[in-house]
């Protein structure tokens, strides 16, 4: 194995994207993503069984096209990597079954890694010099987490996370309340263009002084959701969808950026990494950049194809583990839908 720049294939199936990525060290060779999003539209959210069935059908074509794009042969791989959690258990198991078979068939080491830490590793593939420690804000339909990364392969701390819905889920639910289609993020964005972010002052979850002791870095979007639902019900038809969309989005963005920069300030870390699919939201990026710059914090945002769930980030994390001299995972691990972020690699001896 090339210890300095290992050739790794990563498999990611924790939600609705079947991601196959291939990296050589920190060089991205392929990032193939097959999404089952369209199949979930009529249900207004990700249906686990639909996602798991789609993974099974998408795997072989995705591996095939990733290998072709990377211009390698599977035999050339130094290692195989896979997400073991957190995520949807049934979906994760499809990727785990495939990854184990690939590793055994090729007689290559297998690295089972943490999805959330994978999001942080994605940043390494941008080709820039990445500096730690950093605060990381990961926002998607499946998670909303604030992390303190001291060392990618050995020291990641969870500062806080959502106590109820993920931010992406909140966007989906509010879109549904406003009669907009799934996925809600882009729809809310579109509607918000016609409205004012100052029109309605929606609550910022867990942002009161009394929340600071126990939930300073945690998030909650249920109160916000209830406030929007009440307004929609009370003013039946007599409100501007644009105003509600813009004001709702402002409340989400405000709380995300405020808590992330608070973490930077309190830990004395002038670096913030953004990851997860919700980073596609332009307002969130703008607000983070503006306020971070005022606070003297450098913001890193990988390209969107590396922010959404993907296999390249899983391969990138495994590559770092290999470079750090870590032994591979034993073959006995399973899916862990609630894998804590402190477990960067699972089942290592």
């Amino acid at each position: 194995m090339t210890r300095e720049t290992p050739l790794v294939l990563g498999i990611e199936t924790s939600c609705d994207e079947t991601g196959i990525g291939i990296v050589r060290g920190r060089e991205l060779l392929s990032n193939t993503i097959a999404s089952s999003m369209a199949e979930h539209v009529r249900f207004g959210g990700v249906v686990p069984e639909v996602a798991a069935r789609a993974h099974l059908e998408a795997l072989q074509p995705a591996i095939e096209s990733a290998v072709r794009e990377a211009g390698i042969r599977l035999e050339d791989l130094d290692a195989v990597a896979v997400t073991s959690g957190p995520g949807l258990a049934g979906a994760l198991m499809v990727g785990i079954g495939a990854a184990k078979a690939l590793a055994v068939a090729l007689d290559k080491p297998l690295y089972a890694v943490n999805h959330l830490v994978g999001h942080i590793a994605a940043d390494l593939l941008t080709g820039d010099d990445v500096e730690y420690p950093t605060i990381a804000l990961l926002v998607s339909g499946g998670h909303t987490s604030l992390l303190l990364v001291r060392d990618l392969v050995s020291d990641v701390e969870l500062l806080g996370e959502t106590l109820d819905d993920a931010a992406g889920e909140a966007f989906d639910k509010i879109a549904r309340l406003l009669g907009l289609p799934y996925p809600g993020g882009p729809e809310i964005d579109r509607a918000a263009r016609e409205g004012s972010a100052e029109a309605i002052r929606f609550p910022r979850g867990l942002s009161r002084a009394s929340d600071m002791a126990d939930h300073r870095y945690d998030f909650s979007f249920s109160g916000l959701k209830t406030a929007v639902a009440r307004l929609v019900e009370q003013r039946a038809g007599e409100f501007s969808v644009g105003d509600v969309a813009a004001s709702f989005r402002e409340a989400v963005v405000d709380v995300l950026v405020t808590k992330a920069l608070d973490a930077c300030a309190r830990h004395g870390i002038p670096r913030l990494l953004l990851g997860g699919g919700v980073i596609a939201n332009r307002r969130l990026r703008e607000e983070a950049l503006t306020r971070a710059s005022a606070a003297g914090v450098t913001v890193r945002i990988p390209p969107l194809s590396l922010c959404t769930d993907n296999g390249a980030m899983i391969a990138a994390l495994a590559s770092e583990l290999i470079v750090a001299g870590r032994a591979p995972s034993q073959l006995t691990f399973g899916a862990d839908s609630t894998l804590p972020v402190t477990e960067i690699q699972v089942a290592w001896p």
Partner: protein
Amino acid sequence: MHAVTLDPVILGIDSSLGTAVALIEEDGVVLADEYSEDPLGHAEVVGTLLRAALSDAAHGPVGGGGATKPVTVDAVAVGMGPGPFTGLRVGIAAGRTFAQARSLPVIAVPSHDAAAAQLLLADPFADVGRFAVVTDARRREFAFTVYDGVDDDGLPARVTEPALVPRDDIDDVLAALGAARHDVVRISAAMVALVGARARAVGRTLTGSEPLYLRAPDVTMPKRVAP
């Protein structure tokens, strides 16, 4: 000592009930046969079973105790269910990916065909008669497939396609079909491989590439947002 093998080697894999992995020579000689009955641990055990099967097979036929010689797998036979979906998919994903990694053909085998073959081949001279392989399908249902003897290709002759029936109705349904009930709690991967090998030898397709789910995805519509 096991002589140098020229017979094609088939890898069989099935996770429709427990997790089963086997390697056989095309003529039926079993080189390795691994099994875990844990009905929930498919993802945990599948890699270990695959590795163990390959390493066992390197010693020649089961019980042969020959010298170590790595086996070359020529095809992968995959049990396509029916069975509980979450576990079923693990074996299919593993089988297909193993085949892809080594550029091998995949043979899709209905898991009940393997169970039927096991019963029919146990004693080739026994008059088994018409019977149904019956497996647990969860949610108070059974999955069943009716068979009647062995056909000219040496494969179990399927009379009905796999189907679901409420548990309370199984005996009436089978009586109406004139089939004896044969409950199965374990699928043999060696039998999956054997059925697959025989089908491949005569160019027959036993089932499509889709798993035999027999049920539409269970969709719990997202809850209405609380007022």
